[in-house]
């Protein structure tokens, strides 16, 4: 027998109440319980050992000082961050790469430039943009921008969708198509590795800045071609160099506001 209208409405009302009330009850019990980590304690947080801080981190690269064939910065970075070497360009992971000038600055170079300039190797890495397109497209906020301008990856949240790789106009990001662990020559226990299915990139040595050390590429460069500092601080090293010489940023016209400045 079909229920009457009155019976139907009663059942519907009770069902709705049953759906709503249990979650509400659990909210109240959780609020009462409280965990020490959540709010029971006022943590006495101290600043870690003289961390380097800035309003906006940036880097100046003096390509004139780069020796041709030198890969010191790349090697230092890739050892420090457990970057694997799969030995094939399709799966390649890179935090720093060396590209020809004509490829890094296609709009600024022209066919009549001497070959020595066109093929000059230029170190390229994540530009830590002021307006990063990778952060805009990330569906899980796995990549995000810190207050000091560093564009960070949270590998815990990365789902490997590669939207960021499509969005980045500089090709600064690499996907782990395979498990990278077996392809790391010597694992540095100070830094985690990555896992299959996450995208990775340069982190401006955020873990070293927290310890008060300059990025690995900067300290590894014997020619002092790389200078790291606060681009918002008029007295910083990077600003002194930028004030004295003509510099370029990669694909400035896109409006991403890259924070790697090149002196050619």
């Amino acid at each position: 027998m079909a229920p009457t209208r009155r019976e139907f409405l009663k059942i519907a009302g009770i069902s709705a109440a049953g759906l709503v009330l249990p979650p509400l009850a659990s909210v109240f019990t959780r609020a009462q319980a409280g965990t020490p980590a959540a709010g029971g304690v006022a943590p006495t947080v101290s600043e870690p050992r003289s961390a380097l801080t800035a309003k906006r981190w940036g880097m100046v690269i003096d390509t004139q000082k780069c020796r041709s064939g030198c890969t010191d910065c790349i090697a230092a970075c890739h050892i420090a961050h457990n970057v694997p070497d799969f030995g094939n360009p399709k799966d390649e992971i890179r935090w720093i790469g060396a590209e020809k000038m004509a490829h890094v600055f296609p709009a600024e170079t022209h066919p009549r430039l001497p070959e020595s300039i066109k093929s000059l190797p230029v170190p390229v890495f994540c530009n830590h943009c002021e307006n990063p397109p990778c952060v805009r497209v990330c569906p899980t906020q796995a990549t995000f921008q810190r207050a000091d301008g560093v564009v960070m990856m949270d590998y815990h949240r990365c789902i490997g969708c590669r939207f960021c790789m499509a969005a980045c106009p500089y090709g600064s990001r690499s996907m782990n198509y395979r498990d990278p662990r077996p392809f790391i020559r010597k694992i540095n226990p100070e830094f985690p590795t990555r896992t299959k299915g996450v995208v990775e990139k340069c982190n401006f040595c955020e873990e070293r800045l927290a310890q008060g050390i300059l990025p690995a590429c900067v300290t590894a460069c014997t020619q002092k071609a790389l200078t790291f500092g606060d681009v918002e601080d008029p007295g910083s090293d990077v600003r002194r160099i930028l004030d004295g010489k003509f510099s370029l940023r990669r694909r400035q016209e896109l409006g991403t506001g890259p924070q790697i400045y090149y002196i050619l």
Partner: protein
Amino acid sequence: MKLYDGGKIIAGIVVFVIAASSPFWYGKGKVVPPPDLKLDTPAIEQLREKLCVETAPYMRANHMKLLAAWRESVVREGDRSYGATDGKVYEISLTGTCLECHSNKGQFCDRCHDYAGAKPACWSCHIIPEEVR
């Protein structure tokens, strides 16, 4: 209603029910002893006061929540220090701080996780120092 091949069908159902429920019958009345966690690492032996960053019961119940909060703190807020309830400040590091004391991951983390059927994905990226050395 007529049931064709009723004998075979009912026999099949009985066999299936027995097979599907066999793990329960097999394990009935047996008590699996809780895992025996080893706390005798050199680093713990040297501690004057054998205490983790928080009390043992709290850690036993909430270490996963604490680690999740630590993860957020370091990666998203850039804050690498943890103020414990007793006022001490610890560096937040899974490989550095946790595994410095619990250097016997196999006899500490894994035994309990195996027992509880928990499969944390920490170690696909985070490094176990004893494996690297």
